[in-house]
């Protein structure tokens, strides 16, 4: 299988930790970078930034709506605040602030959701975020990023800081496989082709990218040629890569750790419908909340592992071939 990158898929750090470390690096380079937090700094890893730059760290207490308002105010002074909390609290409790005081005036606020998806695990549904891609993408002018590993996270946190305007970055709780070599280049809005293929394309982001690669490996053994794209930017979508996938492979599977009704998949489907309609299948969380449990067990139970992606790809291929 033609691989564009090294991928032994060894376990690396969690993307939330990669975010916290990248933020410290940025803090050293740019005195305008700030961290704003809501009593979860050890979980979001903003405590690393707080330790090194206490005067540029603001804890708002357990008050996510307030936190985003404070971040908007800081941004109006030319600061570059990164506001971090669990995705569920940040996007849901502060959505009104994100709409009226961040998106509408287009303020330069960076929103970092950690513990996204169901892979937070044991804490259960009230702490799981399965709708934030949808919420963030619904905000005009927002850039929405969902990095797959520590390398991608580091690069995209940097890209977010350089981008002028609101950005949402989705990170996760568990450690995830390292997919990229340290010198991989990332550009907002530019998908990365991880595996070349011509029969079917699997598009994924976050921790589903590693699963997509594993699925491609299994399908390759069956003689199916699979293209894998990392859609690390959900907004703006890489329409060119999507158009090419639709034209050249004629079948697309989108895999995401998110409600399937409202996430990356439906956005890709819109682009496909506009440019080059083709067969599509969607892997994600169906119309339900999950439950408490170990992350791996939940990903399996709720249909978010490589075998489920491979099954969807086989189905897409059969539909494409008219079977």
């Amino acid at each position, binding site marked *: 299988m033609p691989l564009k990158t090294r991928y032994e898929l060894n376990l690396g750090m969690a993307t939330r930790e990669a975010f916290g470390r990248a933020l410290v690096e940025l803090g050293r380079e740019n005195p305008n970078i700030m961290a704003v937090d809501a009593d979860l700094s050890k979980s979001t890893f903003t405590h690393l930034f707080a330790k090194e730059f206490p005067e540029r760290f603001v804890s708002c*207490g357990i008050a996510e709506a307030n936190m985003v308002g404070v971040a908007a105010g800081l941004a109006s002074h030319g600061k570059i605040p990164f506001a971090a909390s669990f995705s569920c609290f940040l996007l849901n409790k502060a959505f009104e602030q994100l709409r009226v005081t961040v998106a509408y005036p287009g303020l330069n606020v960076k929103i970092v959701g950690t513990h996204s998806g169901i892979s937070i695990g044991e804490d259960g*549904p009230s702490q799981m975020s399965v709708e934030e891609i949808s919420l963030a993408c619904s905000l005009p002018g927002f850039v929405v990023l969902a990095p797959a590993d520590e390398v991608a996270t580091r690069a995209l946190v940097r890209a977010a800081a350089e981008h002028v305007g609101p950005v949402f970055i989705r990170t996760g709780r568990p450690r995830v496989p390292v997919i990229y070599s340290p010198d991989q280049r990332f550009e907002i809005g530019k998908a990365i082709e991880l595996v070349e293929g011509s029969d079917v394309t699997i598009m994924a982001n976050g921790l589903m990218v590693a699963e997509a690669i594993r699925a491609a490996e299994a399908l390759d053994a069956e003689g199916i040629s699979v293209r894998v794209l990392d859609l690390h930017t959900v907004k703006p979508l890489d329409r060119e890569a999507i158009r090419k996938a639709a034209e050249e492979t004629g079948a697309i599977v989108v895999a995401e750790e998110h409600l399937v009704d409202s996430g990356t998949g439906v956005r890709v489907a819109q682009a496909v419908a506009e440019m080059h309609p083709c067969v599509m299948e969607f892997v994600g969380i169906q119309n339900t909340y999950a439950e408490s449990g170990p992350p791996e067990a939940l990903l399996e139970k709720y249909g978010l592992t490589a075998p489920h992606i491979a099954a969807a790809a086989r189905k897409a291929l059969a539909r494409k071939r008219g079977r």
Partner: protein
Amino acid sequence: MTSEFDPARLAAIARDLRVLILRMIANAGSGHPGGSLSAVDIITYLYFRHLRIDPERPHWEDRDRFVLSKGHCAPALYAALARRGYFPEAWLWTLRDVGSPLQGHPDMRKTPGVDMTTGSLGQGFACAVGIALGARLQGKTYRVYAMLSDAELQEGVTWEAALAAAHHRLDNLIAVIDNNRCQTDGFTADIVAVEPIDEKWSAFGWDVQRIDGHDFVQIHAAFQRALQPRGRPHVIIADTVKGKGVRSMENRPEWHAQPFTPEQAEVFIGELFEGGSS
């Protein structure tokens, strides 16, 4: 319950519940020991002396309601519910596992005896206001209890709910604040201060009492007083100790959600029986 008030009996039950909490969290591999241990004396009082409930009929229409607004301390509630017979104690050893009726945070659809789904701080209390309002509208005489944490007072919705309850003169609503003075990132006073708590609630129109939340005599007196209608909602500010009962955890914010092994749990349980604490 209608039994005599017997502080020694309640202290013995609370100690048993602490053992269950520690073993439950260790077995699950994650959870929130500190706030569960600070809350458990009040939860013991409510479930073993005070609430009008019937474990045989968890959906009994006229039961008192209890909303654990600080939902992360579910292990304290689960221990009490199991001991009161709402479900088998064996369920406690499935906490946080796939398929378990005991979720990481309270789930009113999965766990008998849980009156409201919680886990996002601030929300449970607002629901309790709605339950109290609903009780009045339906001419019901049951009471609604809500347990909040001190750091939950940082959430704006808490104060929105407090205003609404006072405006509607909900004297069937009794809020308890488990004031253990710690939150995730440290001491509440160092993160975003919430004191003076009593003055704030008085200003919001509530009947305010302040007690030692580990002293059953004071707990009993406060809840008895809260049964008397005063035309306003009641709040009991319970000064507590995070990690109460386990010496090496007491008043140490780092034990908010730190995991520990079953072997460590037994060491902590040994500390419980060193005597002194409740």
